[in-house]
């Protein structure tokens, strides 16, 4: 793992840039999360729910036909097989247990594509807690089935009508509602973003991904580290989880794949490390797509889960320090990679995860290399996008 300093910084990035009204909430969390997460009671409940409810460990699948196609040994970490269809639930399980231990009565969350919203609504139903999910009005229109999934699960979905009416605005709205309800409410952030301690806490909940990869790879290959780990990055939670136990193992190449949208220089992109500069959004200092005047720029990606103008501070640090390699994949190439995996392995991936798959076309590697691709989610939620795209 990567160490944060006492103020929650990964190198130059991170921290807690929050209005004073949020200070007590963040302070309560910061003072308690480590102790709660280290307690036997927490670990027992977390491990049990991950196993019996989420369905962990998720398989590490040797993708034989894909391996042949690309000339390397490719494994897929099957987060798509998690309950609700993506890695997001690893984090919501962790945070809902934490919220209960903090005696919170209500949960709020933001969501973009709806995956994190569904994962939050799911654990709230499981625990019998009231749940409100903020979602950009435009995203609600784009992701109707997920809106209804949340409602079926008993959550209230509230449109965020400010700004660009997408994920960043939903996050703003959730933060505002947390300011308005500081005592009885816990905010479940959906990625390794937000003020300290969220990025570090979410990374730890997701770290189960690389913990399992190590055990599974040892079984299959006789060694616990691959040559390359690949993951897509929106905010960066699935990547943080897949990289977590390999940060300090310098032999393992860590490949983070961002969404290039219609092309990095097209003006319609979400490739934050290429287009962003250091800035402050949603409580942390990170790389941020912004105008010269410091206004946050609206990103674009065909995949709603990667459509975010920043990245988690841990990834900004990976980028700045050179420890991570950052690639960008365009909409069209991601769609092709999604179809390719469907045809070669019988797995329809989420379009976010398809970005990670498409990195195989850009990466240089040896035939003997072992590559683990984190398949963060399944494509059910994206059927409409696949259908609209149509080239299959």
């Amino acid at each position, binding site marked *: 793992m990567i160490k944060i300093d006492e103020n929650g910084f990964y190198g130059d990035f991170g921290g807690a840039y929050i209005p*004073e009204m949020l*200070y007590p909430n963040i302070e309560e969390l910061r003072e308690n999360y480590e102790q709660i997460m280290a307690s036997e009671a927490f670990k027992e409940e977390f491990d049990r729910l991950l196993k019996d409810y989420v369905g962990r460990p998720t398989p590490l699948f040797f993708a034989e036909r894909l391996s042949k196609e690309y000339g390397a040994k490719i494994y897929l970490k099957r987060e798509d097989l998690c309950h609700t269809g993506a890695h997001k639930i690893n984090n919501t399980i962790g945070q809902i247990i934490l919220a209960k231990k903090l005696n919170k009565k209500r949960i709020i969350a933001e969501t973009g594509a709806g995956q994190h919203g569904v994962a939050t609504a799911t654990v709230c139903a499981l625990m019998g807690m009231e749940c409100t999910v903020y979602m950009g009005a435009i995203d609600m229109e784009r992701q109707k089935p997920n809106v209804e999934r949340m409602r079926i699960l008993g959550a209230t979905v509230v449109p965020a009508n400010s700004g660009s009416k997408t994920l960043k605005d939903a996050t703003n709205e959730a*933060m*505002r509602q947390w300011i*308005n309800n500081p005592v009885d409410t816990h905010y479940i952030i959906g990625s390794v973003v937000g003020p300290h301690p969220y990025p570090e806490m979410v990374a730890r909940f997701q770290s189960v991904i690389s913990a399992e990869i190590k055990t599974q790879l040892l079984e299959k290959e006789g060694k616990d580290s691959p040559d390359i780990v690949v993951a897509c990055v929106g905010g960066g939670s699935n990547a943080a989880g897949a990289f977590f136990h390999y940060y300090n193992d310098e032999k393992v190449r860590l490949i983070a794949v961002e969404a290039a949208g219609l092309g990095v220089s097209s003006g319609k992109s979400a490739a934050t490390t290429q287009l962003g500069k250091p800035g402050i959004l949603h409580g942390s200092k990170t790389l941020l797509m912004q105008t010269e*005047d*410091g*206004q946050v720029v609206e990103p674009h990606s065909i995949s709603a889960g990667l459509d975010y103008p920043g990245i988690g501070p841990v990834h900004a640090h990976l980028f700045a320090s050179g420890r991570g390699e950052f690639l960008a994949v365009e909409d069209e190439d991601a769609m092709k990679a999604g179809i390719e995996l469907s045809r070669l392995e019988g797995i329809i991936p989420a379009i976010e995860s398809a970005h990670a798959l498409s990195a195989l076309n850009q990466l240089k590697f040896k035939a003997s290399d072992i590559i683990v691709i984190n398949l963060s989610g399944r494509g059910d939620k994206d059927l409409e996008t696949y259908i609209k795209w149509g080239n299959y």
Partner: protein
Amino acid sequence: MNRIDELFKNKDGNILSIYFTAGFPKLDDTIRIMEAIEEAGADIIEIGIPYSDPVADGPTIQDSNNVALNNGMTLKLLFTQLEGLRSKLNIPVVLMGYLNPIVQYGMEAFCKKCQEVGVDGVIIPDLPMQQYTDAYKELFDTYNLRNTFLISPQTSEERIREIDSKTDGFIYMVSSASITGAKKEVSPEQIAYFERVRDMGLKNPRLIGFGISDKASFTTASTYSHGAIIGSAFINVVREAKSLKEEIKTYIKGVIS
């Protein structure tokens, strides 16, 4: 002498601070609005630097930020509009803005420019106290700028005392656990909080903001503090105004009369 210091030296209550968003409703309304506020008899002007993601603000100020940005307002342009300010106005001026646009402008360049045009203080809601004291306090002192921190009903006594020791100018008391926005009445819980802070014997004067909208709420707030800040309610006046100057004056006079 800093105009904020001077104000609090000469006036110990019923201080009215008016917030508006630069570039709203029209790009070049800034000076016109400021003149009207001073002429009407308010004591401090808070100019909001518009931002795409104002996390501590309710719908009214979110909307004024949006309109201002669409009109083309930037921090650079605001400073240009404020050039020559001090040949026209004497009222203390505070810039209120989120951290990112200021950091992109450059904190030192920002402080320097504030002093040049005659800005007296700054409120940056998402600048943490620690960060301020570690990285920026010296700059603020060099350029004779007052920095104002916020406190809320949830802020612990210990932290209020720490904030008091690191603030010079005034403390911004957020009236309830909420984002900005005009509200109806002041509740008994709020009164208890106002009294609690009043009785702490802080070195800095306190202004109460968020949800103050008219004579009644201004008077109540002023009973427990040195005065109050009106934002959203003023934005609503400005948005609807047919004759900007006249209606601003009528509104402010109605609050302080």
